[in-house]
Every structure is written in structure tokens, then in C-alpha cells.
């Protein structure tokens, strides 16, 4: 939406000349590894109309070491001459003058270009690059009593004309700065007079404009987004953003950053990537289920645009469900969750889909040892763009290979997923976007039992811009998740078991700007959920399995929300929101009746109650508050605080500590109330070394109510009366997080450390069972110490190496500690719930990425990524289990990747 508003503005303020100039400017390609400047000029002259004029002896000491891919000459020269005394000037006929000490003046006087400047209302900075860089734009009408003036405008990309969010606009004398907002707009107040304005697109390149600021005025700028790298992703939450935004606990990872992380088996993994962030951890190596700030894995809202992914994993969690080529960025909100999101207690993981390029049909893909992927994108006609992609696995050969060393056979595992994102622009004011996702997983460990599951997500979103101040988006969609087990080991017992979830949603969201200080958002969100908790049916004619079905459940969630971001002044920026959630649980449903005030146990059942279809069995409602505020200490640092309250109406029933596909969902009903939680957080954010280093630390405290823990021996599959097996539990979590990130330079990376606790306590009113005698105990994912180090070193533009380390305290488990004989049999004596821990987790990975050459005319750009996962070959325990052996119970720890796992993937783009 934002992108198109910008494009629209772009057209208004922009002269057509600049287009053709941009298009015509010669682009330079090639790899120049430490050659002399003279040789570089010769090579450029060979392929472009540029002609260089210089003094041979002056430039003899300069060498060129760069990689150019569709690069502009000015950018290359800027890089070459950075830190030297050399200057260059480009004349109109592509003559380039190199001078030492003093810049040759080849541009014309200010007045000459009065045709491109529209004093007072709008100047265009989007003309030929070399020109705009050296031209001094005259902005505004001077008036004698004005000391300062406001410069505003929009920033867009030179390459694809899309707006750029989060670009920093600054001048270097007083270090006044601002950031382009979601629509690429910026506004900066400067003293009247001449300035050099710098524009930095984060992770990109610094551009500059010379201005002569005489009064308030507009300067729109098109800047080069990516000069050297093949970076494909817009960074939309960067270092300055981190200081100035009011929210906290929000972290963005771009796909290109993820690509640098060593992945399991060579597949870039969206969800694994967020595990480098502080406050995020996982209980098992191969589980996509992740825990944010002491919350359970079902408390994360995983969104692909507006679609909820209920099982975000493939192959039991070895790969995450979304193809990294299909998304632009991933944003994780641990706190400071805006009021327009709701439904989960811990966090929101927002994956932003990609919508295809506008210039030509292109594609990308990858071939790895286990998986391959391919995507195609581009325009269809003038107003529509698409991107379509698929992934599949052929891991069976690996399983076959490994079977030679193992005792099983007929293991099979496969998955595929398909994505289609289409965007259509009806006009500058109306944009329609479609996102579709389908995935299918199937696996088996013996020939007779096949497990499979499917995700299906379809959503449509229509964005309409009423005017500069008001925009609205309306979306509707369907999210579906189904799981099946088919057992055929014996014709008599053959069965099919399945459960499924079907969610239909409608969402309307408005965004309104009130002056410069307020951004108000409001909307309504309706969500209808139908849940089939479980059904077993006989399979085949001979089967004598008895059909058994847990009654279907349905509910409607209605939420309305309103929020305001209020920039009070330079120092204070606050945002507040309220979301009101109404939850109705509908019949038909037959439930047990228990006496008032008595525990919901089987012994206490006194009858049954049946509700009619459509009858409201139970209603829950309540407000959720979201407040956060920022206080800037100075341009480099700020303090933020926030309070967040959340509600969650659906629960994942998981009687184990990892997400397994057989975990089923449960809607809140008359016995199981919605989970609620509140989080308080406080943070300090500081940027150092010209924003190359970002440091942040946050402390938080959360309390949660109506969590579910389980009685000993609880059954969750095909359980009609889950209320008998769950225990109302309170939770609390607290912690402190440190994060240091270096985003620029050849050596970049991040270090994070978290100390956090997550504790449960059976609600004292729970009469069924009090776990550990009603005292506090660690939750399944209480891992106090967690540290992650990621280091990336760019050996050259084509070659980078990444090293990462990951440490966390082992997760808590309940272990058998001794045994005894009772009632004629050997029995096991267990420790208190979660009293013991598995050994600590520690892993080092290493990977390298090799880019192919960047000649513009070749068929495809390619890269290789290879590396080793778990370099040390450490056996990190995933599970502990006990098994009787020679009459004694013996404990074993299982590790998944107990050896170094090498991987290699070939990626290509065309």
C-alpha cells in the first residue's frame, strides 16, 4: 500500500526527463580485483561511452578492488576515491574528469536548472545521478525572518521506483537526522542556508544532495538501493529506527541476513533465523516451535501477511514452512505489539510477502542435497505483478542411505509447498493483493503408518487510499490446517485418524494521520474458527475399528481496536492502543455437567448437557491494552517502556515439550477460559560508532493466567473431556536481554545474551491436582541462559564466511529417579515436575557463501552456499528416555545432529 502511494506521489512531483536519464545512464558490470585505476578506466571505456580524463602520474598509486553489477559509475568512483583527495566530475557527454585536491566544476549554474525546481512546492532530486549529486537544489522562498526551514519529501529506489522505508536523512554538521516513514516520507528541520544532505538506506549506500535551503520545500529523492551486493531485501527496521520508534522488543531480520546464517542442510530457514534474536529460544533442535520470553510455542502468532500458519514447519520441524524466496522480511514482535494484532499471548511473527518485480520476468531457485526450490516473478501486463514459487524434497535417498546403518526400513518423508502472491493496481488509489500458500507433508517410519498434514492459506487484501492522510485496507481469507494418520498394519485394525482447523477471517483496518504528530489506526477483526478435534474411522472393508469422533467446536472472535502514535516532541514519542476482544463459543455441543465448585473429574460427572446449533454456550470478553513510550536521551540513545496485555482464545494441547504434529488445538469453552497475560518491559537503546553498532538491553516481566498444564498421564488425542485432564495454571516470566549488532563493515554480526526464567504454578483453586504440591516450578521451556553469536566476514564482495555459536541451558524435564515395587510390580519414582534438566546445549556452525561473477549478460546469477552444521559434532540431547534393559531401567539421551553435518546448496537468480 505504502509503496503505491509513493509511486503516486512520485508521479506528481516528478519530471519525466529523469526516467530516461536514469535508463540511459551506462551501467557497469564486472569484477575488478585490485587492478590499477588506469586499467579500470580502460575497461570501463571499453564497455561504456564514458571517457576519462586524468593525469597518469597522479592516479598511479590508486588501485581498484570491487565488484560491479549494474552499478553506476558515480557509485564506483565514490567507493574508489573514498578517503582520498581525488575528485571527479562528469560532464554531459560522458566525459569524466579526475582531479586531485580540487573538484573540477563541470555543472552549470543553479539558475540553469530552474526547470526542474519548483521553488516552494517541490523540487525533484530524481534526475541523473551524477547530476543530482553535484547540483545544488534551491529549496523554498527565502524570507528574512526565517531562521530554519522544513525540508520534506519522499525517498524511493532508483532501481525499481519503490519507496524506501527507514532511510536516514541527515546532515553532518549538527547531526540533525530523520527517517523516512512507512511511506518513504521524511521531514527535517534545518537552519536556512547551504547544506549537504546525506541519505542512507540502511544496509545500502550513502547518497548525498546539495541544497540551498531558503524556505520550506519539498525534495523527492531516488536513491540507489544496492550498489555492490546482490541484496534483495529492503530493510525496514534499522538502527536509527530502533532508537526513534516508540515500540520495543521489535526485531526485524531480512532474508539476506538469514541467508548468511548457516542453515540445517543448506536450506535458508525463516524461523530458525529468528532464534539468533535475544529472548527467543527453542526446546529442541529440530523443532520449529519456538518460545518467546517464557511463553509456550502456541502463544506465537505466525502470520504470512494476514494468514495464520498453524503448523509452520516441514518434516517435523527440520524446515520451516515458508519458502524464504517468497518473503521480503520477517518481523518479530516480542513486546510493543500493536493493537491491530491479537489472539496470541507471547509474540507476533509477521512475514511480509514479496510481490514480484515490475521490470521483467525473472526467477530464482536453489538446488540442495535434500530440497530444491524454484520461483518465478514478474509483471503481467502493466498493472499486475506476481511471484510464484515451490519447494520440494527428495530426502528419501538420504533415508535409504541412512537405513543401511539403522534398524528400520520403509521410512519415507516428503513435503512440498507452493506460494502464489499477486498484486494488482487498479489505480494509484486501489491495490488488490492476493497471497496463497499450500503445503503438504507426508512421512512414515514403517510401511503401514502414514502421517500427513496440510496447510492452506488464502487471503485477499484491498488497500484504498482516500487521501494523503487516510488509507484503509480490507482483507478476508481462509486458513486451514489438517492432520491425518493412516494405519494399515493389519486389515482388521486399519484406521484413519485426523483432525483439522478451519479459520475464516475478515479484517478492516484504517490508518489516519492527524497533522504531523498523530497516526491513528483503528479497525475491526472477525475470526470464525471451526475445529474438528479428532476423528477416527475404520479404513478398508475389513476394518473393525469403531468410528469415534470428538465433537466439532466452533467459535467467533470479534475484535475492535484503536491506537494512536503521538510524537509529542523530539524527546517524547508515545503510542497507545486498546483492543477489545469478544469471544463466543457456539453449539452444538454435548458436555458433561459437574457440580458447582467441584473439580471437573470423571468421578464428579453428574450429567450431560446438549446445546443446540448456533447457541452461544459461553462468552468471554475483555480489553487488551498496548502502551509504549520512548524518551530520546540524544540522537544516539533512547529509553523505552511498554505495557502489553493480551488474550488468547485457543490452546494447543501438547502433552510434551516440543511441538509435534499430533498436538491438537482446543477452543476455550465453558471449562477452559482464554489465556490472558500482561507484560511490562523497559529498555535502553544506543547506537555507537556512526550507527555501525547497535546496542540494546531490555528487561521484562510477564504474568499469565489460565495456562494449561496437564495432569499426570493426561490424554490429548480423541479426548472428549479435555477439561478433566488439564490444570488451570498461572505463569510468570522475567528476564533481561542484551543485544549488540554490527551491521556495517566487513566484519558484521551480532551477539545476544538472555537471562530469563519461566515459571508455572498450578492455580490454587485447581482441585484436580496440584503439581509439585502447588509450588512454582520451571515451565518446559525455562532455559535461564541463552547466548548466540553470529559473525560474518566479507572476505570480498563475492565471498563471505559466517560463523555462529549457540548456547543455552538445558530444558527442564521430569526424570525417573528411583524405583520400587508396589502392588506386585516394579514402579518408577519420579522427581518433581521439571526438577531435572537435560544437559546444556552448545553448537557451532560455519558456512561460506560464494557469489558467481556479475556479468550482466549471463544467463543467471548464481551462488554457492556450503558449510558445516555442528562443527564440533557435539551430541546435544534432544530427548531423554528410559528403557528397561536386563531388568534395569537405563537412561539414554538422543541427539539429532550428533555429528558435523556438511551441506551445500547451489542458488541461482535470473
Amino acid at each position, binding site marked *: 500500500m505504502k509503496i503505491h502511494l509513493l509511486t503516486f506521489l512520485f508521479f506528481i512531483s516528478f519530471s519525466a526527463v529523469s526516467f530516461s536519464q536514469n535508463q540511459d545512464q551506462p551501467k557497469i558490470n564486472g569484477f575488478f580485483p585490485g587492478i590499477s585505476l588506469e586499467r579500470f578506466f580502460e575497461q570501463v571505456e571499453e564497455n561504456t561511452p564514458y571517457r576519462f580524463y586524468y593525469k597518469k602520474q597522479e592516479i598511479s598509486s590508486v588501485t581498484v578492488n570491487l565488484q560491479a553489477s549494474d552499478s553506476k559509475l558515480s557509485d564506483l568512483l565514490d567507493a574508489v576515491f573514498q578517503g582520498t583527495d581525488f575528485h571527479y566530475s562528469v560532464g554531459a557527454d560522458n566525459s569524466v574528469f579526475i582531479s586531485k585536491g580540487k573538484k573540477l566544476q563541470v555543472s552549470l549554474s543553479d539558475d540553469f536548472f530552474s526547470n526542474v525546481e519548483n521553488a516552494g512546492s517541490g523540487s525533484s532530486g530524481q534526475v541523473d545521478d551524477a547530476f543530482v549529486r553535484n547540483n545544488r537544489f534551491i529549496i523554498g522562498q527565502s524570507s528574512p525572518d526565517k531562521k530554519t526551514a522544513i525540508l520534506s519529501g519522499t525517498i524511493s529506489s532508483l532501481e525499481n521506483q519503490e519507496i524506501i522505508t527507514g532511510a536516514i536523512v541527515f546532515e553532518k554538521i549538527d547531526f540533525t537526522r530523520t527517517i523516512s516513514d512507512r511511506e518513504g516520507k521524511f521531514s527535517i528541520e534545518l537552519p536556512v542556508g547551504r547544506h549537504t544532505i546525506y541519505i542512507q538506506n540502511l544496509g545500502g549506500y550513502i547518497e548525498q544532495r546539495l541544497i540551498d535551503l531558503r524556505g520550506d520545500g519539498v525534495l523527492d529523492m531516488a536513491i540507489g538501493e544496492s550498489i555492490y551486493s546482490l541484496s534483495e531485501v529492503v530493510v525496514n527496521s534499522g538502527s536509527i529506527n530502533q532508537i526513534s520508534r516508540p515500540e520495543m522488543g521489535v526485531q526485524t531480520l531480512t532474508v539476506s541476513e538469514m541467508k548468511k546464517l548457516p542453515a540445517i542442510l543448506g536450506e535458508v530457514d525463516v524461523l530458525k533465523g529468528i532464534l539468533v534474536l535475544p529472548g527467543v529460544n527453542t526446546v529442541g533442535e529440530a523443532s520449529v516451535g519456538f518460545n518467546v520470553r517464557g511463553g509456550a510455542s502456541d502463544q506465537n502468532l505466525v502470520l504470512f501477511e494476514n494468514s495464520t500458519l498453524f503448523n509452520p514447519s516441514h518434516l517435523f520441524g527440520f524446515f520451516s514452512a515458508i519458502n524464504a524466496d517468497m518473503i521480503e522480511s520477517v518481523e518479530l514482535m516480542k513486546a510493543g505489539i500493536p493493537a491491530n494484532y491479537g489472539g496470541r499471548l507471547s509474540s507476533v511473527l509477521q512475514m511480509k510477502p514479496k510481490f514480484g518485480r515490475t521490470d521483467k520476468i525473472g526467477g530464482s531457485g536453489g538446488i540442495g542435497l535434500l530440497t530444491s526450490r524454484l520461483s518465478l516473478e514478474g509483471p503481467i501486463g502493466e498493472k499486475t505483478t506476481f511471484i510464484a514459487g515451490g519447494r520440494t524434497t527428495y530426502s528419501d535417498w538420504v533415508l535409504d542411505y541412512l537405513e543401511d546403518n539403522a*534398524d528400520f526400513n520403509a521410512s519415507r518423508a516428503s513435503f512440498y509447498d507452493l506460494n502464489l502472491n499477486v498484486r494488482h493496481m487498479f489505480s494509484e488509489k486501489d491495490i488488490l493483493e492476493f497471497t496463497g500458500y499450500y503445503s503438504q507433508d507426508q512421512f512414515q517410519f514403517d510401511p503401514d503408518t502414514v502421517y500427513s498434514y496440510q496447510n492452506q492459506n488464502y487471503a485477499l487484501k484491498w488497500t484504498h487510499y482516500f487521501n494523503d492522510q487516510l488509507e484503509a485496507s480490507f482483507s478476508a481469507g481462509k486458513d486451514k490446517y489438517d492432520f491425518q494418520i493412516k494405519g494399515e498394519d493389519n486389515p482388521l485394525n486399519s484406521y484413519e485418524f485426523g483432525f483439522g482447523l478451519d479459520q475464516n477471517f475478515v479484517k478492516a483496518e484504517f490508518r489516519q494521520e492527524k497533522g504531523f504528530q498523530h497516526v491513528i489506526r483503528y479497525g475491526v477483526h472477525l475470526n470464525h474458527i471451526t475445529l474438528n478435534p479428532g476423528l477416527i474411522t475404520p479404513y478398508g472393508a475389513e476394518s473393525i475399528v469403531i468410528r469415534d469422533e470428538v465433537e466439532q467446536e466452533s467459535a467467533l472472535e470479534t475484535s475492535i481496536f484503536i491506537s494512536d502514535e503521538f510524537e509529542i516532541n523530539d524527546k517524547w514519542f508515545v503510542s497507545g492502543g486498546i483492543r477489545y476482544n469478544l469471544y463466543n463459543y457456539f453449539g452444538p455441543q454435548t458436555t458433561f455437567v459437574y457440580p458447582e465448585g467441584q473439580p471437573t473429574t470423571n468421578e464428579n460427572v453428574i450429567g450431560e448437557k446438549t446445546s443446540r446449533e448456533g447457541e452461544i454456550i459461553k462468552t468471554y470478553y475483555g480489553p487488551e491494552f498496548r502502551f509504549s513510550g520512548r524518551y530520546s536521551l540524544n540522537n544516539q540513545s533512547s529509553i523505552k517502556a511498554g505495557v502489553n496485555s493480551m488474550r488468547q482464545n485457543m490452546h494447543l494441547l501438547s502433552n510434551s515439550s516440543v511441538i509435534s504434529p499430533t498436538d491438537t488445538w482446543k477452543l476455550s469453552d465453558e471449562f477452559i477460559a482464554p489465556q490472558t497475560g500482561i507484560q511490562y518491559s523497559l529498555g535502553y537503546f544506543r547506537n555507537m560508532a556512526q550507527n555501525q553498532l547497535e546496542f540494546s538491553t531490555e528487561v521484562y516481566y510477564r504474568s499469565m493466567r489460565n495456562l494449561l498444564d496437564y495432569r499426570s498421564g*493426561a490424554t490429548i488425542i480423541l479426548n472428549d473431556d479435555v477439561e478433566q485432564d488439564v490444570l488451570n495454571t498461572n505463569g510468570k516470566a522475567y528476564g533481561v536481554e542484551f543485544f549488540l549488532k554490527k551491521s556495517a563493515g566487513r566484519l558484521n554480526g551480532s551477539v545476544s545474551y538472555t537471562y530469563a526464567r519461566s515459571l508455572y504454578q498450578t492455580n490454587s483453586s485447581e482441585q484436580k491436582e496440584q503439581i509439585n504440591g502447588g509450588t512454582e516450578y520451571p515451565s518446559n521451556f525455562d532455559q535461564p541462559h541463552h547466548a548466540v553469536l553470529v559473525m560474518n566476514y566479507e572476505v570480498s564482495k563475492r565471498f563471505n564466511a559466517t560463523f555462529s555459536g549457540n548456547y543455552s541451558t538445558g530444558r527442564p524435564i521430569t526424570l525417573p529417579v528411583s524405583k520400587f515395587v508396589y502392588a506386585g510390580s516394579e514402579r518408577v519414582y519420579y522427581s518433581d515436575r521439571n526438577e531435572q534438566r537435560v544437559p546444556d546445549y552448545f553448537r557451532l556452525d560455519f558456512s561460506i557463501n560464494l557469489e558467481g561473477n556479475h556479468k550482466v549478460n549471463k544467463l543467471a546469477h548464481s551462488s554457492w552456499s556450503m558449510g558445516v552444521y555442528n562443527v564440533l559434532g557435539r551430541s546435544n540431547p534432544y530427548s531423554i528416555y528410559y528403557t528397561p534393559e536386563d531388568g534395569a531401567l537405563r537412561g539414554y539421551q538422543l541427539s539429532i545432529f550428533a555429528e558435523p553435518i556438511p551441506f551445500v546448496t547451489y542458488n541461482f537468480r535470473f
Partner: protein
Amino acid sequence: MRFKDLQFLLVLIFLFTGCREPFEPEIENVQGGVLVVEGYLESNGLESVLSISRTAPISGVESFIPELGALVSLISDSGQLFKLTELKDGEYLFQQDIPENQSYRLEILLRNGEKYYSDPITPIITPEILDAGYIRDEEGVEVYVNTQGNEVADDFLWTYEETWIFRPVIRTPYIYRNDTKEVELRKEEEQIDLCYKSETNPDLLLETSSRFEDQVVFRQTITEIPQDDERLMERYSILISQKSIPQEAVEFWETLKRNTDDIGSIFSPLPSVISGNLHLEGDEDQPVVGYISLGVIKQTRIYINQKDVLPWAFNDPEFDDCSISIEPIYIGSPQYFSDFGTGAVLPARELMEGTTIVAYYSSTRRCSDCTLYANRGKPDFWED
């Protein structure tokens, strides 16, 4: 149900070059283990046994560590004291006819000076088992009991012991005598084709009679014997014990039952700590395992014959290779002495020439000797 068995993850883990290593956590061993006390003391003067032991290290072979030399007594509200006498191996005999309208306290004084006591216990007279029987259905045989609770006896616990006749695949009447080197017919005490196999089942069955109309527990399933199971290869017997337990004991037995059903794999239900109605004096937080009850146990035994549940064809694939040899072993041949001499090969059938046995067809011992798998002697209770 099969799909409940989530062991497949473990299998998956092996797939991915997974590795399995012994795991020995450093568990602070409760000194000498936790005290375990078990007993349902008969209040009507019949013999009953209280057993006192300690929990044993999980990785050890021994799982029963008896607590010897304890002084155990039952004290009534009115101060009457009934002593238990030590038998052996941590077992203490109780044989007293005690008034059933009083409340009692069990006291255990250990040799190390620790004193344990129980919460007050009221004897409960278990109602009679109204009926015990079985139902033959498509899935096999289901053994059930019917009973009726009353105002004092509401919660029931059933346990059972099973015994059945076990036959070898190949029955042989012959025995080779190593001293005389001759084959003779086996004597009664040497027979190896009729054995009895007994098992105490770890199952604990719990039910509350007040859930049902008139507190009648109808057709409470005790055990289900799947079609063609070994237990009904010929004749099967089950001794069902019915005990009334106070409501507070239900949680103890349920926890025990649930903790038994799994052995702590990652997907198994979370176990929980078990306690009971015993406490250590002076340190009430110290765990003690056991729920002691007082009362009268009711038992009944039923028999089921294979011919009453036909068709029932037990077939153990382990013995699929068993057959009588095709080639006879002639008396006096070198093979005769070597094969039969080892005891691993047994004479099974005779080969006659006229009226004389000249050779024997053989069988292996594992196919013919039921004493390898069960006990030869007929149990005292067994009725044919």
C-alpha cells in the same frame, strides 16, 4: 491405540544420524531412598502382610530394598495397640481381629530412629463381588466383575493375578537317560508338556460406584484377552481382588497407575510425584510412598477354557520353525548318543519296526520343554 504411541519421533531421530548415548543424570539420591510402605491390612483376623522397603537406584538391577527390623504397630483411637510381627524381607505380618468402628493410626519405627505415622485410617469392609465372568466377543475375551458399593465403600480398586496352562509346541513323552543311555517314558514329575504360567498384573483398576445408579458397578472390565492370545491356549484362571479404598486413596492409586503406564519418553504424559497417607515425624515434607488401608478384601477366582471360547488358535511365531525331524535317529547310532546326550535334542516320536522301537524322530528342547517358559507344578488352588 496405535497413534498414541509417538515413539516414531525417536525413530526419526535415529534417521538423521541421530545418536543414542547413555544418560546418567546426577540425581541427588535421597539418602537411602524414599520409604515405600504397602499394605491392605485385614481387619477380620485373617493374615495380611505389610511390606516396608526403600526406593532403589533407577539403574540398579534390584528394585526392592527391604527395610528390616522395623517396629510396626497399629494404634486405635482408644489407645489399643496391635503389633505386627516381622516375617522376612521387609514383610510384616498382621493378624488381628480389630473393631471396625474405630479409627486407627499406623506407626513405624525404623532402626535408624526415624518414626513414620499414617493419617487416621478407618476400616472399610469391601462389599462382596456379586458376580465375575467373561464375555466372548470379536476382539477376544473380556473378564468382568459386578459389584455394588454402599455409603462407606464407594471407591474400588481391583487387582488381579492370572495363571494359565502352558503347553509346548511339540509334546514328547520320552526322556533320554544319560546314565543308561536309553530312552524311557517320562515319569509324572519329569513331564515337560504341561506347565502353569503365572503373572501378577501391574494394572490397577479404579472405579467409583456412586457414579452409577444404586452404586451398582456393572461389568467392570478387569482384563481383556485379545483373540488368540497365549493365555487361553488351554485353560486360564484369574484371581480378582476387590478392595474398597477411601476417596483420598484414589489419587494415590491413580498417580501410581499413570506413572506406570509410561517410562518417560519425550512424548509420554508428564509423570507426577507420588505420595500417600504416611509421614515422617518431624519432617512432614519428606516424601513417603504408600497408602495404607484397613478393611476386608474380597476375592474371587474364575476359570476359562479354550473350548468355551472357540475359535481360539494360539500360535507363537517364535516357534514356527518347530517340527519333528524327518530323519529318524537310530538307537545305537553315533548320532543317537551325541544328539540326545547334549539334552538340546529330545526324542519325540518312535519309529517302529514290527513291535520294536528302532529309532526316534527328534525335536529340540526349546520346542518341547515347557519348563523353559513356565512352571511344572500345578498350583495349589488349581481346579481342573
